[in-house]
């Protein structure tokens, strides 16, 4: 398992640089833009692509078969990707928090951070939760398609939730959302892991 995690780490260092650069650009824009939270929140969604991108590289190199001749179970193989997803989510949430604080102070405001950040952390776990089971069952190409569908559905829901910049503080004040969202997202994440393990154990490599 440690070996698998080290491999993921090496792969992330090599292949996630592009993502980090794009996230940095988005964060910088969000600091200098007024009101709109899109550039601040989008890196959380974008970073959810990293584990899926790494699985694409695994498939291309033949690692999916080769990694499973090593002395580790399929459950461990799947778990390594989920641990990676959690690490990325925590890292990106921390970055978003820092950017959010900078934005608030540069705007001279004083918004409650707690619920907003917790909701952000919860939100960052959603993309891998929904996409990884599809990837472990169908492969990365079809899984990527599933990811796009999920994002499209989420984006389509935004107007119905009336999450415009003017209403953002209203949502941020609603601490209950944040505190319900995190345990709920962790539950979905755990269910997603179990589903992925089940799918991957049945998959022919």
């Amino acid at each position, binding site marked *: 398992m*440690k*070996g*698998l995690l*080290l*491999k993921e780490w*090496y*792969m992330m260092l*090599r*292949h996630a640089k592009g993502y980090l650069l794009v996230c940095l650009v988005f964060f910088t824009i969000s600091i200098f833009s007024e009101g709109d939270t899109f550039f601040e929140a989008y890196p959380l969604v974008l970073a959810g692509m990293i584990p899926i991108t790494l699985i694409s*590289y*695994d498939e*291309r*190199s*033949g*690692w*999916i*078969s*080769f*990694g*499973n*001749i*090593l*002395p*580790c*179970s399929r459950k*461990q193989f799947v778990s390594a990707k989920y641990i990676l997803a959690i690490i990325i989510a925590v890292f990106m949430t921390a970055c978003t928090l820092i950017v959010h604080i900078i934005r608030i102070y540069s705007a001279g405001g004083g918004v409650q951070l707690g619920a907003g950040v917790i909701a952000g952390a919860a939100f960052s776990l959603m993309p891998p939760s929904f996409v990884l089971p599809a990837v472990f069952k169908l492969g990365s190409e079809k899984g990527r398609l599933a990811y796009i569908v999920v994002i499209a559905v989420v984006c389509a829901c935004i107007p119905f939730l009336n999450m415009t910049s003017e209403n953002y503080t209203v949502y941020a004040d609603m601490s209950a959302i944040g505190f319900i969202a995190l345990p709920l997202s962790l539950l979905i994440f755990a269910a997603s892991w179990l589903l992925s393990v089940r799918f991957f154990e*049945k998959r*022919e*490599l």
Partner: protein
Amino acid sequence: MNALEIKGLCKSYTGFELNDIELTLPAGYILGLIGENGAGKSTIIKLIMDLIRRDSGSIFVLGRDNREKFSLTKEDVGVVLDKVGFPESLNAKQINNIMKLTYKNWDEREFSSYIERFDIPLSKKFMEYSQGMRMKLGIAAALSHKPKLLILDEATNGLDPVVRDDVNGILNEFTRDETHSVLISSHIVSDLEKLCDYIAFIHKGRIMLCEEKDRLLEEFAFIQCSKEELERIPQSALRGVKRSVYNAEAVAERSALPKGIRSRPVTIEELFVFMVKESA
């Protein structure tokens, strides 16, 4: 103890069927699996490594069922698949670091010595390796965790003759320890003929024969004779016949040859080719 024991193994796909495979590899020996492309060699190896699910039958690896706690068994098995699947962006140094954390018995010194012996660059990315170099790294990794069973799927294909000879030497060294065994599949029959103690022929998903190599070479003979002479050989003794306008070539059981028929020792390649063509 048998290093590998396969009984009644079946697996079917659309358009291909692996049927009732029986294979036994005693500990301390090398078994060569010979077959054409698409005969089912890689499917058998994937089934042994539980990468694909069998429809029926049983597989015991180093005395243990490959469906029960196979992660533990895999500690003692070194595998080189036809495609060495190390991540493309990693180098040999990073692969060593990963393997060190993966195998309990990983021997860094042994890995380094193979890297040196095979002349593999340490800091070059895997994607920049030639096909031969990829195979060499795969073989080095498979040998560096003190495996008891080595499984090689077309591993010597793509290697130049000098390195192939070197690999054959390494495999011979490996089986000097009587607890070490090798299953090697290839369609380069000449290599397997030099290397193996046991030979199995696979054709269209079926094992045609599985025997000790020396016994096969003793049992069968290559015959070049006239058509009249061929008529004198009992049909049941013939394993394959090639007829031309003037004469005939055949592989037949040596003990059943009538007196006066000239024969010479058969090679494994001839035996395989004649048997496959006969069954076609």
